[in-house]
């Protein structure tokens, strides 16, 4: 009984946490380059809507994912032009991007609402042999493909940030753009490319929602997960591995109310109205994680990237 409960919870938590993981990884890279992005929610929604619409009309999930990624990356590019080249305030433009994305996906997705069910979805992948291992098999080896992409992207992002020249450039631009500029790093270009990458990851997050985790398109289907990703970036201390831990934990907590309803013998949960309080848990978890993250950051002096959120102009300091 309890084993199945936890196995289900962990398996579902991994799947539900993966879209947030994608968005958070994108956020980590963008913020490392000094660009704060509060528009993740909007980019995810546009990605989810585009992916679903494309997968429906072409019948190919891959085409859907690619379309979702490109649509959100285009939004990321527009945002980068505004905040990197035009030096707009990043908080307000990020919020504006969020509004635009939410509204745009509602307008463009309106004809899709009646066709709720997805035709082409991202397949699950059962690893032959390994999937019959009792607990591990169910948690790890019968997952959707996106979970495996998530497993791969976490170390890849870490390698990108800490073991490549590109990563060095991204981190330098986020810490001290003037110094990076004097060493010949193209500050504007690095920030723009990082932001486009973040957009693409948010698009992947949206596509994996509408084509894998909860297949279909519902207006506002991200339900705040984009904002959660913004919070997890800070909780993660701008580190891909901690981002993964946070995202999967969030996924499990988000799944908890559903799973607890199936457990018998818990008198507390007989009252269905208590589900509202359980549904608050993921959001309260993010707040608690942020408090914990800020305490650790203050103790270890692990701050945000020093130039985070500050527009930079060549020749000005």
């Amino acid at each position, binding site marked *: 009984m309890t084993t199945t409960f936890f196995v289900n919870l962990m398996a579902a938590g991994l799947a539900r946490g993966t879209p947030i993981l994608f968005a958070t990884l994108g956020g980590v890279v963008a913020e490392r380059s000094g660009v704060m992005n*509060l528009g993740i929610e*909007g980019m995810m929604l546009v990605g989810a809507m585009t992916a679903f619409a494309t997968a429906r009309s072409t019948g190919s999930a891959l085409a859907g994912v690619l379309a979702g990624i490109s649509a959100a990356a285009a939004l990321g590019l527009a945002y980068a*032009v*505004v905040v990197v080249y*035009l*030096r*707009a*305030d990043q*908080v*307000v*433009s990020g*919020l*504006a*991007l*969020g*509004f*635009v*994305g*939410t*509204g*745009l*996906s*509602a*307008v*463009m997705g*309106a*004809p899709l609402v009646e066709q709720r069910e997805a035709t082409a979805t991202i397949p699950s992948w059962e690893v032959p042999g390994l999937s019959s291992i009792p607990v591990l098999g169910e948690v790890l080896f019968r997952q959707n493909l996106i979970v495996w992409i998530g497993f791969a992207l976490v170390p890849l992002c870490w390698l990108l940030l800490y073991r490549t020249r590109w990563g060095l450039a991204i981190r330098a631009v986020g810490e001290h753009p003037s110094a990076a500029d004097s060493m010949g790093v193209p500050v504007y270009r690095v920030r723009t490319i990082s932001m486009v990458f973040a957009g693409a990851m948010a698009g992947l997050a949206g596509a994996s929602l509408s084509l894998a985790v909860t297949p279909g398109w519902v*207006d506002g289907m991200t*339900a*705040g997960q984009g*904002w*959660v990703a*913004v*919070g997890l970036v*800070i909780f993660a201390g701008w580190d891909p591995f901690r981002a993964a831990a946070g995202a999967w934990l969030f996924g499990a907590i988000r799944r908890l109310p559903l799973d607890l309803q199936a457990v018998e013998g818990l008198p507390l949960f007989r009252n269905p*109205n208590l589900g*509202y*309080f359980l*549904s*608050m848990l993921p*959001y*309260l978890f*993010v*707040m608690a994680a*942020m*408090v914990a993250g*800020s*305490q650790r950051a*203050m103790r270890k002096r692990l701050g945000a990237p020093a130039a985070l959120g500050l527009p930079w*102009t060549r*020749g000005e300091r």
Partner: protein
Amino acid sequence: MRGIARVGFEPRLEVSAAVRWSHTVLSVIGALLCGAGLLDAAGVDPWAAYGHMARAGLLGSYALSDTTVKATPILLCALGASVAFRMRLWNIGGEGQLLLGAWAASAVALKLLPTSAPWWLMLPCMMVAGAGAGALWSAGAGALRAYLRVSEIITTLMLNYVAALWVAYFVFGPWSDRGFPLTPSFPASANLPRLADMADRWPSLSGLTVHAGVLVAVGAAPLLGWLLTRTRWGFELRVLGANPSVGRLAGMSVTRHAVVAMALSGALCGLAGMCEVSGVVHRLQDRFSPGYGFTGIVVAWLGKLEPWRVVVVSFLFGALLVGGKEIQPGGVPQMLQGLVLFVIVGSEVLLRYRLVVRRAGENAA
């Protein structure tokens, strides 16, 4: 000399009022043009949609009355956002504070005071409860920001979802009216008076739903303007927003100001929630707010955080909501709000800098 022209920016030394106003107007026009392109791509005739919105939102006494009704909560939320934004505290939780204010006001009207309570006791109690609940909700985020340096952007946002679930619990659960997701109607003494209530004496007023909340909202604007520009508190708030270290060196308390500014911001949003349940809905129900708290953020920024400009912009956004209500697909007003904000913020660089074109080879200063 390569003869290629390069575009650069030169800082402007001063910005005249004419430049500011034309910037606002041109940005709105630019945003509407972008929106037209997107609407066209979505298969909607943009000019017909804009024409309909202008007619439905601005022409005739009913339209103006509906627009004012929508503008009331927007104005209060925008004033609330302006207070926090002045100190560069990003209170994005106006929506949650509005919901909690509405909840607290409903608790007073339905549970705490007897239905026989007279209006002069009922309405002030509801206002105090609404403003107080909003203030507490946001002061928590302000305190986390001030003492633990937790980003108020995220906490206020997360609290929006918590507040929505809190309201949902009460309207679906203990306060539900026969299982519907709404509470029973408030007693008559808990409703803000409307123009239409006087229709038996002046028949021409029938159908006008403007309620007394608009007086609260429009009254709050000059009061807030006075607080922000004519008092020591407002001065300190602006100093701390512009340069926290200067403020700290001058002996101002950053932490105290942060909590107070957030509390005042939340109080105004909570008041918006009270006015909405008491003046419009007359009960608490699920999803009664179409995102007034978020619209307030856009309006505050477009009004450049100055109360009187905010009044004007609130009214225009009220018209946008009324006019956009019947446009299919939904979401058009929200998209336009975002676009307007995006274009305004993106083009603010032209207020601060002058665009200059120079040939390559000429040295920049």
